[in-house]
């Protein structure tokens, strides 16, 4: 049935969108920094996975944690060396800074990896239920995305660092007085943001062709998902991702693929104006 296929496409895609957006949302919500590097982080994760797979033949799922950790380290260092110094400055400053850093990273990637699209060609096949198809790699990607989301949610709720991140999000000075090392928490948060991007990149390398041309597209999706779902919230990113996946899927089918993205952006603008906190506003430990 078409309807099921469309909804299923939307949900699977939505989970992947959520995965793109979570790290971005977290960094935005906690550090109050719009991280323009996020798209490049995802692509970098994708390239690292691709090349590691290409040269060693190791299964990408096994590579995922390593890629994610590498990105964590990169994010941690960037925050520690650069962004922390201006983290309290106005939006324009932090946004411009991350934009500048992104230009550097992007340039490095185009020089070392070129813009050639790369894809991990595992081709795991597809499951079919009557007329409805579910590609296994996407299913796997969705599962990984959900697992990562759940893990991050648990970390935010249950762990010490999760509590510290939330406290810092609310009030950095008060957090410092609780004995929380604010700048370290920032670096870790940014690192987690990059880690999630790296993991998303690893998943994407299995499903989508990876090319530097896509950094802007990924960043755009992250924006939209965050605003739809609500900033800084893990469940928000999940809901936002699913919502966007479904919208694009349904709109692409009914009014045509040419306008599907426009619909997503319009919905985001609409929500921005009527409900800036997104579908799920941040509350407490999330």
């Amino acid at each position, binding site marked *: 049935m078409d309807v099921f296929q469309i909804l299923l496409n939307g949900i699977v895609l939505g989970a992947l969108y959520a995965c793109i957006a979570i790290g971005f949302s977290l960094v935005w919500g906690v550090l109050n920094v719009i991280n323009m590097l996020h798209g490049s982080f995802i692509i970098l994760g994708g390239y690292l996975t691709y090349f590691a797979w290409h040269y060693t033949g190791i299964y990408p799922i096994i590579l995922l944690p390593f890629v994610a950790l590498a990105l964590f380290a990169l994010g941690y260092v960037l925050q520690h060396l650069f962004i922390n110094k*201006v983290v309290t400055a106005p939006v324009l400053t932090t946004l*411009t800074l991350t934009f*500048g850093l992104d*230009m550097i990273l992007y340039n490095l990637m185009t020089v070392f990896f070129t813009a050639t699209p790369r894809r991990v060609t595992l081709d795991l096949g597809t499951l079919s239920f009557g007329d409805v198809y579910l590609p296994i790699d996407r299913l796997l990607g969705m599962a990984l995305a959900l697992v990562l989301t759940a893990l991050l949610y648990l970390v935010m709720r249950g762990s010490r660092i999760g509590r510290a991140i939330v406290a810092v999000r609310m009030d950095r*000075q008060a957090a410092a007085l609780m004995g929380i090392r604010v700048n370290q928490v920032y670096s870790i948060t940014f690192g987690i943001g990059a880690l999630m991007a790296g993991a998303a990149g690893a998943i994407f390398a299995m499903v989508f062709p990876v090319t530097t041309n896509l950094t802007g597209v990924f960043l755009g999706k992250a924006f939209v998902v965050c605003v739809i779902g609500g900033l800084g919230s893990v469940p928000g990113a999940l809901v936002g991702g699913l919502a966007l996946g479904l919208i694009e899927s349904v709109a692409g089918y009914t009014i045509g693929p*040419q306008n599907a993205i426009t619909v997503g*952006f319009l919905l985001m603008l609409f929500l*921005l104006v009527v409900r800036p906190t997104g579908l799920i506003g941040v509350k407490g430990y999330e």
Partner: protein
Amino acid sequence: MSIAAVVAYTIALALIPQFAGNYETRIAISVAMFSALALSWNFIGGFTGYPSFSTAAFFGLGCYIGALSQRAGLPAEAAWMIATVGVAAFAAALGAIILRLKGHYFAIGSIAIVEVTRLIISSWGSVTGGGDGLNVPLMTGTPDVVAARILYIMLAVMGGAFVATVIVDRSRLGFGLRCIHQNEDAADMVGVDTTRFKIAAFVLSALFCGLVGAVYASWVGYIDPTDSFSILLTVKVPVMALLGGAGTLAGPIVGAGVFVLLEEFFWANFLQWNRAILGIIIVFLIFFLPGGLLKIRYKNLLKKLSANRSADRSNTVSEGEAKG
């Protein structure tokens, strides 16, 4: 003082076609064009402190309205005027909606506007040519004449934007916008009609962009959605204003001039790395010239270079103070 300097600078730019070739003239056009864009941005981003990234939307719409009017048979000058008015009206309508957003939300909203206008223009193929882009009637005359003419027009736009800046700066409008920048609630409380003031600033920031876009379209003779609504443009322009000193009178002009020349230089000399080098300049700018070139205080510069040890603390306390 800075007014005299700007006048002298404008005259110097205007003399370039007399003394140099078309390539230099083209750079001068870029300088004038980006100066006008940065000055426009300054109304909303500098005076009012709203992190607007809508420049490319206004510019792109200006391109398209100008191009379509010209294709409909209007003379170029009329097409430019229509583009200016059209973009200003668009900004007024849009401003009423998105200026309710603050901070990051406004930033996002303004970027989204660029994307949405781009997407709409490109999917409305029957009128705009969609992804095919549009050809704009070429201006008649030899290349030298055309280039000089475009330069004078761009300089006129830049001059207009600068005059508007000076007037606004000295008027109630400018004062009110600065109040909004500092503390919008308080501005409201002392009787500033913040909605109207912000819309005025937003319209000012759009108007010159629309005009510049329309002139640009006539100049290049071909436009398409990707180039007209470029995200790079929308970020570059605020960076130029910041580089010179956002909120100052001449800062955007200084920033645009320096940026265009630097870009030109790196790009000619470091082919493969020009983007990274630009990135490095931006990073450098944020750290060492937070107030822009016009506000450098060399004493602080040295301090910055050596400090940052106790970042953990300074962050937290300044935040505390911000909350009163």
